[in-house]
């Protein structure tokens, strides 16, 4: 397998940067990381690929992302206010596809949330479709495949 360490380093840096923003609630900056048509998707069915025609846990276009962020920060949501911090580990990063227009990468995430004093853990595979620009990557699609996507989840008042 031919590896492109420079590209992998860039992708790794970007994924770490995005994860850091989300753990530290840098939501406004996170919103600026997206292409206009970008989609943030958390599917219920891990085998499904036609996300638009299936029910997902979340399928956010730019409007929904903006509203999701507003809900988390405007102080009106009792559940968002009782989330402390999340700590997520991103690892096993692999570039699956790379061209001048698009880079597809996959990684593992373990997100930990402290909720009413109890630790809740979310393991997931995440797939990124990134668009290279002069200022760095933009996210065109992020699919969060939770390990227990089709089980009974706890409610989520943060962003994966």
């Amino acid at each position, binding site marked *: 397998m031919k590896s492109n360490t420079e590209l992998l380093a860039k992708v790794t840096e970007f994924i770490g940067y995005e994860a850091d923003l989300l753990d530290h609630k840098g939501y406004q900056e996170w919103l600026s990381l997206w292409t206009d048509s970008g989609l943030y998707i*958390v599917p*219920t*069915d891990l085998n499904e690929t036609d996300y*638009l*025609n*299936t*029910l*997902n*846990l*979340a*399928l956010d276009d730019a409007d*929904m992302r903006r*509203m*999701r962020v*507003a*809900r988390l920060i*405007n102080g*009106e*949501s*009792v*559940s*968002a206010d*009782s989330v402390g911090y999340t700590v997520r580990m991103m690892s096993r990063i692999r570039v699956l596809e790379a061209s001048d227009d698009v880079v597809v990468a996959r990684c593992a995430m373990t997100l930990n949330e402290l909720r*009413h004093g109890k630790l809740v853990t979310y393991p997931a595979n995440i797939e990124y479709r990134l668009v290279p620009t002069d200022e760095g990557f933009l996210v065109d699609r992020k699919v969060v495949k939770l390990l227990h996507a*089709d*089980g*009974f*989840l*706890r*409610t*989520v*008042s943060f962003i994966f």
Partner: protein
Amino acid sequence: MSELIELQDISLKAADMVEEGRVHKSLYSDPEIFEEELDKVFNNTWVFVGHESEVPDSGSFKTSFVGRHPVILTRDRKGNLHVLQNRCRHRGATVCEGRKGKTKALTCPYHGWGYGLDGSLRALPKPEEYDGVFDKKDMSLESLRFETYQGMVFATFKDDIEPLVDFLGGAKKWIDLFAKQGGGYPMKVLGEHRFNFPGNWKIQLENTTDAYHFPIVHKSFVSSLDDATADIFDFLDGEGFVEDLGHGHSVMVMIPELVDLEADLDQPIPARFEALAAELREEGKSEDEVKKLVRAAHGTGFNLNLFPNVSCSMAFFRVLRPVSVGETEIQHVALGGEGAPQAFNRKRMRLHEHFQGPMGFGTPDDGEAWERVQKGSQSGKDGWILVNRGMTRLRTSVDGNPQGAVCSETGMRGAYQQYKKMMAAGSTTNTAPAEEK
């Protein structure tokens, strides 16, 4: 320590813990009462197990529960529905796992007994050892009595309770209205969200008939809507009502204009549905059909609470399952139209994702409030939960039922009276299995 002992010594029976306008907080937290509920409530009434559209073809199955008992809803070769206990007749393994799917047979993984989707035992390895021991035809999976209404399948362990239609009674007219969700197409399940919360099942049961919490708990959801839509959800001062329909069922009408989705079809298209209308027109739908589909896309303006475990909630089914005294699993089942334009079903799913499920803009805040109720109700050795809101301001509905303001607790009182009646009755007899601990 002495306080703890006194706590255990509450001599009231569960049925006595329900008064007209209040219920004792132990109903949320006493494990013995929980066991009694499974026995006297869930084993003794009609329990929702699924919708016919979830098992569309011969060979389709869906796993479900009646109280604590795992069951399977199936459609056999001839197209007939069955509700079967998910327990192999040999040594008891479940014969079916997974949410739903399609299969030719239900094969037990342990020793390979194979059952048809009608529950009959078809084949087993090395059958000669059973010669003279039993006859295969007596070893079908045990089936439950079930009946359907508008495609909703309800099952029961009891052979001697009233027919489903009598149990639903005054709720039937509202189920008929709810079934207009499909916009002229048969109502169909599109998918479901699943989540759990650390609290008692009755907290969820109450919530579906609780409009009082909406503007408080769901403030952040309302803020995310455009002004016109936010106005629709500002219903506490409107003409809505809560009506006790008997047998523990109730309806809470929040948006009276949206009770009948097939009425008032001449309304202009609201801004948030313009994109949908444009897509439908592009598909060649007539203006009449566009208006009908757009209006149905909203969902109905009411929550119909069916005792004990399902609610037809505006645009979806809310199904609860009691797991333990302090844990409840909930499904939010998204609905659309069978054969309806994809654009319509897509819109329905996007609206569902907006509010419902563990990542919706509504559910997490409900969940937070319920978790607080469970936690708070542990405080103090004695205490009551109030359900007396609007109790002295009741009127009689056109159907002759008690009806109160939209933000009254009329529906909760109805549910608790049914609960009281069932909990006061003797233990189960008949075919209902005893609860094992």
